């Protein structure tokens, strides 16, 4: 276990290094990007530009600039945004994290429950008309883009039907911290949760159905029936349990990516100021410090999710555990 953690930590450091260097190089090698001009404004005099370059260290060689930026992210934590002057990006990301985590956790619970429901139902109803119907439904869910789905949800719940009893409980767009008002936190997140989870529920449901049908033909499932177990127990303890191995590894990766910022479309559509939203703004403003910090944050979560997947995988499948 200890060697596993050490190996993983070294791996994380390596990944962070490579990714930050890449982002850094891409930023400075992109034609037409001049951070000093972005900070100073369009029509600034050369004197002001030179002053700003000196102030932000932009006149130093690139490796030195890189090292300084890393120091400001990891050690002094006082990296300042280029576009929102005076804003420190590390605390800004820390402040945005709870919103993203709230959104992704809730959606994950929803999509896992829905996917297991869809997958198991479709596998059990195989041969009836309900199986293809469920699969078409799942395919529609997978195909609906989240920004479109979110806009439609907003049109319905904030516009047309907001006045009726159906959706009058939906608060205006935005995020309320859990610590501030738990009920409002929940009410505000219900529609974003559903929107974000639908595509994943469809995808996971289809994957699970395929795995279940494959596992149902395994010899050990036949053995389980021959032992005289109930159908329910064979399904839960044998078929489903073994099918969850693929499901779990898929889940870990998607969950990590979403926490890392992939939920940005949902966050933007619903005005949730999470990490994805922050990244989105940083990209539109070409704000290197914020981009860099969110990339580091994202890479960290993806590596962490991978490590957790490996542990869960070993727990689910004893064959891959080290002896």
């Amino acid at each position, binding site marked *: 276990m200890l060697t596993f953690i050490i190996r993983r930590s070294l791996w994380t450091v390596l990944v962070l290094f490579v990714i930050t260097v890449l982002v850094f190089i891409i930023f400075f090698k992109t034609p037409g990007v001049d951070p000093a001009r972005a900070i100073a404004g369009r029509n600034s005099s050369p004197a002001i530009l030179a002053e700003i370059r000196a102030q932000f260290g932009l006149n130093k060689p690139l490796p030195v600039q890189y090292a300084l930026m890393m120091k400001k992210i990891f050690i002094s934590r006082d990296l300042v945004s280029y576009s929102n002057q005076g804003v420190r990006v590390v605390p800004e990301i820390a402040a945005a994290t709870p919103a993203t985590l709230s959104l992704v956790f809730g959606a994950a619970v929803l999509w896992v429950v829905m996917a297991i429901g869809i997958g198991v139902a479709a596998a059990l109803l195989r041969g009836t008309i309900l199986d293809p119907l469920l699969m078409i439904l799942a395919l529609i869910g997978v195909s609906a883009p989240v920004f479109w789905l979110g806009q439609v949800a907003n049109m319905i719940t904030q516009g047309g039907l907001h006045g009726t009893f159906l959706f009058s409980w939906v608060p205006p767009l935005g995020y309320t911290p859990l610590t501030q008002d738990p009920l409002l936190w929940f009410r505000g997140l219900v529609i974003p949760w559903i929107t974000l989870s639908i595509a994943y529920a469809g995808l996971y449901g289809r994957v699970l159905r395929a795995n279940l049908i494959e596992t149902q033909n395994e010899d050990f499932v036949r053995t389980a029936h021959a*032992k005289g177990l109930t159908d329910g127990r064979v399904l839960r303890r044998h078929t489903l349990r073994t099918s969850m191995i693929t499901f779990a590894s898929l889940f870990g990766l998607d969950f990590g990516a979403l926490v890392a910022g992939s939920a940005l479309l949902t966050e933007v559509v619903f005005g949730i100021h999470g990490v994805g939203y922050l990244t989105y703004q940083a990209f539109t403003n070409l704000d290197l410090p914020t981009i860099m910090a969110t990339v580091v944050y994202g890479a960290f979560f993806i590596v962490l999710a991978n490590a957790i997947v490996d542990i869960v995988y070993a727990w689910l499948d*004893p*064959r891959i555990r080290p002896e």
Partner: protein
Amino acid sequence: MTEPLLEVRDLKVSFRTEDGLVRAVDGVSFSLSQGETLGIVGESGSGKSVTVMSVMRLISDPNARFEGEVLYKGRDLMTLSKDQIREIRGTGIAMIFQDPMTSLNPVYRVGWQIAEQIRAHEQVSKQAAHARAIELLAAVGIPRPAERVDSYPHQFSGGMRQRVMIAMAVSCNPDILIADEPTTALDVTIQAQILNLIKKLRNDFGTAVVLITHDMGVVADLADRIAVMYAGRIVEQGSRRGVFYDAQHPYTWGLLGSIARLDRPKPRRLSAIPGMPPSLLRLPPGCAFGDRCTHRFDLCDERPPLLDRVGGGHLDACHLEPKQKKEVRETTIHPELIEEAE
């Protein structure tokens, strides 16, 4: 002999496929008494496995159709509800399968899997079931059972896994143990160990055994009676002695003739049955073995019924006169085969 424990009457199993109806089992009847061992012999696709799977109602293919009766202690298993059949599985009739590498669930400890079966049928605590699992592993010859009970299937060899399967099968003291090619996937040295184990358990507990195999050598040692299957039908059925010494069906002669013998001069070539089994989609109207039979004559265009032609309950489905058969047979098979077995 008392009333049979298991009686299969005119069992027919067919599968609807895109190419037509496959008659996998076409009118099979046999019976099994308390403590008796029945060997069912035949090549791949002859319907042996489908027959016993149907007895256990383990075929869930929606395209399968079943006819006939399977009487276990007088109850017709084919008409029982799911819950009723579930109670019989494991306690009344237990089964072990061909491939021990895939027949155990890879994600659970073997002791857990044995205990699961015990707890499915008896009201016992987890600890008690676990302790029983250790005793059972010891009984099937697993060394250090108290440690191995917590191992996963992948930590066992093929032979050891088959022992675990056997331990699981006998955990609820079944009346009947069905062994579907239990040694086919194993090394030859391990095969003998597993067969001896089945023999020992049968003798110790008085369990009736249905042993399915394509290897006459396997049943030579173990079976009281032998049924030979070909193309979904039983073509010969009789006592072990009868089938080995006085085989009536040319297909049985072929099977007996194709056994390699180590105690005789090496033949230039091991004899084989010419041709291939017929497609189960289009069985010939007459004798299914007719096209491969070297003794075919006019009458063979009619399907030969399974009748007792030589007496003593020895059934066969061949139109040849017993006298004729005796003459031909002497040149084809090795009647000494059974001697060492006894």
